[in-house]
């Protein structure tokens, strides 16, 4: 079964953003961490703890069901994969996500969805993230 991204070690996070930079760089050819499918943010400012907004890899993904053009297809192991050519830019997948982690690329007019590729895990220097198999 393909693995999915999990973030069990966020208490160790130092907020370096290397994970987001890796996702934006590899998957979206962007310098900006805003262009990452997973987002690390602070709760209550920098004095609060860091949390990760990540795709929870739904097995029957609401974002897939919301897509009228079949541009999002169910990923084996959980989550969704984008078939770019089919996307009509309707944005219906964005509000469909129960945990609000389908982001919108306003330039490309396509959703930013996690592929569970694991590159963010590779670039985390503190072991906050991992790829895991779920039942």
């Amino acid at each position, binding site marked *: 079964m393909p693995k999915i991204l999990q973030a069990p070690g966020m208490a160790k996070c*130092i907020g370096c953003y*290397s994970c987001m930079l890796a996702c934006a760089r*590899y998957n979206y*050819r962007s310098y900006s961490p805003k262009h990452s499918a997973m987002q690390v943010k602070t709760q209550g400012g920098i*004095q609060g703890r860091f949390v990760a907004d990540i795709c929870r890899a739904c097995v029957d993904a609401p974002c897939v069901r919301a897509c009228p053009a079949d541009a999002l297809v169910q990923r084996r192991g959980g989550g969704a994969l984008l078939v770019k050519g089919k996307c009509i830019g309707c944005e219906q997948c964005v509000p469909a996500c129960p945990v609000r982690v389908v982001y919108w690329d306003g330039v490309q007019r396509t959703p930013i969805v996690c592929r569970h590729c694991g590159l963010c895990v590779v670039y985390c220097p503190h072991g906050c993230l991992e790829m895991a198999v779920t039942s």
Partner: protein
Amino acid sequence: MLHENYLKVLYIDLSAQKVRVARREDLYPYLGGAGAATVLLSETIDYRKGVFDPGQPIVFAIGPLSTIFPAVTKAVAMFRSPLTGNLGESHAGGRIALALRYAGYDALVITGRAAQPTYLYLDSNEVRFKPAQTLWGLGAEETGRLLRDIEPGRGHRSIMRIGPAGENLVRYANVNIETYRHFGRLGLGAALGAKKLKGIYISGDADVAIQNFPEYNKVYAQVYKRVTETSLMEKYHDLGTPENVLPLNALGALPTRNFQQGQFEAAEAISGEAFAQYDLMRKLSCSGCPIGCIHIALLRHQFGKGYEFESSFVSYDYELIYALGSFLGIGDRAGILHLIHRLDDQGLDAIATGITLGWATEAMQKGLIASGELGAKLAFGEVEGYLRAIDVIATGSSELARALAEGAQTAAGRYGGREFAAFLGGNAAAGYHTGYANILGQMVGARHSHLDNAGYAIDQKAGELSDEEIVQGLIREEEERCVLTSLCVCLFARKVYDRPTSRAALKSIGIAVTDGDLDRLGQDIYRRKVWIKKRCGFDYSSLRAPGRLLETPSMRGALTAERLDGLVRLFNRELEKSEVPGGAA
């Protein structure tokens, strides 16, 4: 701008509440950061008017590699220093470089004075001048929280703000950024206060596409590996800069009780090891740096009988442990953390505050100033008096309070005790009593910081050093650091960004430079800074160190005024050989 042949500069006039954007191709060869800021400052500074004149500029600049390569996280601020009256330069990390990059600007130039307390909101689409009367008078911590709540922001946010010390024009007031980082030195906080500018909120919400993915990705991965998998930056993550406490103490180079000693008997108790073992709670990074050098301690304080506790999270570093610890004879970690927490909220530079309090303690012992007038009784090792004195410096109105707000050097000019006011070149001395190179380096460095030219490192080289070696070493190092700070590389990563690495990183984003280009750039920027300082009235030829710093034996033994005078003369001869090209702007 990334992949453009210009730097995008936003000019902000607080008096007229107007903004203007300029695309400056002529600044492109300066890369950004300190280089671009030096030129922008020299264009806008008014040499005839005072430091608090509304026309004086405040410049912020980032560099071409900022936040798109690991550990390139700094923004450079340049201004006319309220503390020295000449070139003000200070660097800060946090999220400011990230926010500024994706707000779409390489540099900001702020002039004018707002009619009412104001804060600036800035993103890729707009600049807003917002009322800050409600925030005026609040501490840095609460101001940050309120701005975070008031402005939701769409992008990655950076929140600069001043505390009461900046509002009250304390000459060494700092600017707080993201709670735990600062534009610490030379009084940028007072420069903002004089403009009635309580804070600057920057939201980085735009996007920039990578142009040459294979090349950029390859170099990024190589640099990331150098940062995280080699020993080049290990110490900064491990114990952090407080690692220096014990080695410097062993060398007799840890200034103690206002430079009366070079060793502190309680060094063990305030060492990096002790802080890490007993107080360290977590580590944090600036955005885009995987090191995590920001060490946060838990300060637990009993405020009532029984089990009544409050807690605060305080960032600590070597310079703070020195200035508020050994320098004030304070050997307990909680006491140091209390002092850091208090001056952070008031918005004061830790080094200048500690050095000024050290002078005041001795001045009080000697009867030059009175505790009644200060409203606090100062004695080495006594935390309570210092906590009170920090509040007095930030907000007090007595003649003595305002004198201390100008720094130990100025206060000593009024009350006596110049020989034990530990200022060098007009700025408070950093915590390295290593020898001549350290003292000369801080006196002649462009911002009078140990980071300008690392004289302390020259002193720690083996063997006797000739005057020639010291002077040449300082100038070459400062030129090289002018290159690094134009790239906006964090100086902790200076060994990572050797020339081949810097050139490869620049090439991957389409900037081709040779080592010769970078050599000339460093020399040019350095000479321009010297030229600005001279035009502001800084006199390199009459530099003297306070007697205390020569008498108290350094790591290299006692120092003589004669040899230091000789070094100053030799330095001036070197400086005269190469004046600024073209007379600058």
